């Protein structure tokens, strides 16, 4: 900093104060989340509502991963349902086996010639937990390396990931005898030895989901601050250039993709005991797009945007679909189009736009023309949270 001159001092100060404000925002966000999730929600919400919120928290976990892969890494992944489903089905298989007891078989398998060998893999609780994290991660690693090495990106990657989700759902439906086909797996009685119909245990499940979500946000936060996060943004904005700097962009992207997949797998695994059923309907193309909508609405490149957007969309969906079931689907699609076309930074960017407008109003005298759209000083230096400026070109590419 010894060489910084007078001309740039004010700018540097602006950058510092912006960073301080940013730190305060993040701190306030974590505090609010912890108080709301561990203090307020369990006190004021009925058991039914708490269970619904826990379900929304699971969907928000998927959104956190998408925020990293899409918002930071530019990978519009329309197939997170695959990884969600892998985690969910592994958990469901484990719960069915532990309900059935040693050597037993799940109740829905009335006929047939015994358990498929891969069911046995997840009978052991440790193996099941490992599988929930590792199977989606490995699937993402193999798929990601194959796709990114061939430099498939943008809309092609989005279509490909969606096709994988469609194929995965079809595969599940076809497996009537081994994983319940289109009915899926349901009627779980206990979760690692705890009875699922006990309200205390259900409350515990909510806390597990809440803690997991906060931990995931903290992980993504650290990644965004790190050198890796800067590199990921660089790959998003100039993949070729990164290659000429001596990096392999495929490896940079696959890391974010694998983390997003692991998050989705864990989310699916927690979804199963909380909701009590997993079926191909929860993992196909439509739910995969549903994950994306929340992220887009909340602000894909921000830290809290994906979580808040996902929770808001889940809540709106459960409220509206109760009264106007068919309208909600159209509304959801409409919302997505509006956000992508007119508000690429999501709701999170509205805050910045408004602040810029009001700041201009106080700085300049009454009757003055509005100030030129200068770049928000808050985003100078460390575009970690405030990085939600509209970017129509990029969205156009990805659509």
């Amino acid at each position, binding site marked *: 900093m010894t060489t910084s001159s007078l001309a740039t001092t004010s700018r540097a100060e602006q*950058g510092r104060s912006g960073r301080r404000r940013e730190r305060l925002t993040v701190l306030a966000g974590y505090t609010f989340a912890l108080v709301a999730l561990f203090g307020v929600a369990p006190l004021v919400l009925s058991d039914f509502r708490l269970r619904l919120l826990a379900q929304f928290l699971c969907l928000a976990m998927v959104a956190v991963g998408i925020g990293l892969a899409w918002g930071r890494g530019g990978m519009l992944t329309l197939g997170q349902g695959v990884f969600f489903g892998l985690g969910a089905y592994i958990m469901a298989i484990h719960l069915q086996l532990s309900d059935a007891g040693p050597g037993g078989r799940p109740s829905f398998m009335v006929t047939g010639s015994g358990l498929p060998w891969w069911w046995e893999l997840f009978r052991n609780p440790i193996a099941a937990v490992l599988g929930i994290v590792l199977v989606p991660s490995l699937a993402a690693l193999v798929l990601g390396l194959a796709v990114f090495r061939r430099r498939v990106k943008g809309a092609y990657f989005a279509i490909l990931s969606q096709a994988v989700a469609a194929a995965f759902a079809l595969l599940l439906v076809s497996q009537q005898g081994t994983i319940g086909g289109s009915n899926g797996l349901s009627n779980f009685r206990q979760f690692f030895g705890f009875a699922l119909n006990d309200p205390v245990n259900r409350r515990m499940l909510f806390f597990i989901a809440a803690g997991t979500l906060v931990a995931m946000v903290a992980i993504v936060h*650290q990644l965004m601050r790190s*050198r890796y996060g800067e590199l990921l943004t660089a790959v998003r*904005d100039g993949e070729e250039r990164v*290659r*000429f700097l*001596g990096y392999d962009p495929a490896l940079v992207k696959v890391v974010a993709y694998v983390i997003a997949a692991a998050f989705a797998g864990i989310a699916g695994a927690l979804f199963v005991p909380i909701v009590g059923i997993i079926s191909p309907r929860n993992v196909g193309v439509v739910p995969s797009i549903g994950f994306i909508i929340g992220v887009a609405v909340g602000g894909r490149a921000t830290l809290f945007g994906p979580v808040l957007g996902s929770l808001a969309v889940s809540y709106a969906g459960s409220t509206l679909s109760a009264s106007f079931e068919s309208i909600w689907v159209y509304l959801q699609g409409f919302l997505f189009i509006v956000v992508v076309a007119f508000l690429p930074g999501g709701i999170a960017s509205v805050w910045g736009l408004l602040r810029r407008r009001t700041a201009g109003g106080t700085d300049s005298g009454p009757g003055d023309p509005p100030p030129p759209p200068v770049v928000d000083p808050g985003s100078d230096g460390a575009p970690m949270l405030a990085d939600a400026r509209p970017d129509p070109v990029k969205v156009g590419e990805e659509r």
Partner: protein
Amino acid sequence: MREDYLEIRSLRVVFDGFVAVDDVDLTVLQGDLRFLIGPNGAGKTTLVDAITGLTPATGSARFDGVEMIGKKVHQIARAGIGRTFQTASVFEELTVLQNLDIAAGALRKPLSLLRARRSVPESVEAAMETTGLTRLRDRLAGELAHGQKQWLEIGMLLVQNAKVLLLDEPVAGMSGEERELTGQLLQTVGRDHVVVVVEHDMEFLRAYADSVTVLAAGKVLAHGTYAEVQADPKVQEVYLGPSSDHVPEDAVQATGGGG
């Protein structure tokens, strides 16, 4: 100090039967600021693409005993060959400092990337000093002036630890003052790097080139100092057509500056 050099032998690039680069031999020494000129379609950028792995080629391009032809882009970059593009391609959403830090980091251990940057690496400080960008370190690269973006790109090559710099029209679109600063920057950098500049601007060439190689139709047509090349009748022919027998200096500038 050891003298480094880039050695190109029998380099050929063929696109669907069209020979874009035809048996080019070229040796560039460290401290010899080399300019590569030629009419449009002479194969200048294709030659750079071939050396940096963007275009498949046959023949040989060796630096420091390492063969580059057949390697992947990022491997070539790690072997010490850096390049810029005709359009500045910096990471506009990141600051000057972040751009340079990324350029400096290709050999960092993967796990160390998971931590935030604690201090500015020495090489990054030095590159900001050399390119005059120290005061702009916290500015987003997208907000820089055109010339400053090009300097940032050159700075990124320096911290990337590139020993060979291949610059594709670095002064295109620059103002007079920016050209002068760029020329001085290239002379400074050229003292301890192998530098090849693809350029159309004859004024710039005359002011800063130590030596000039002329390409035409994928072949090396002439090689020497600016004055030698300018006096070469073969060079005058490709720039002005076969009928002219006398070429004034200004005519070369006028035709060459267009592309």
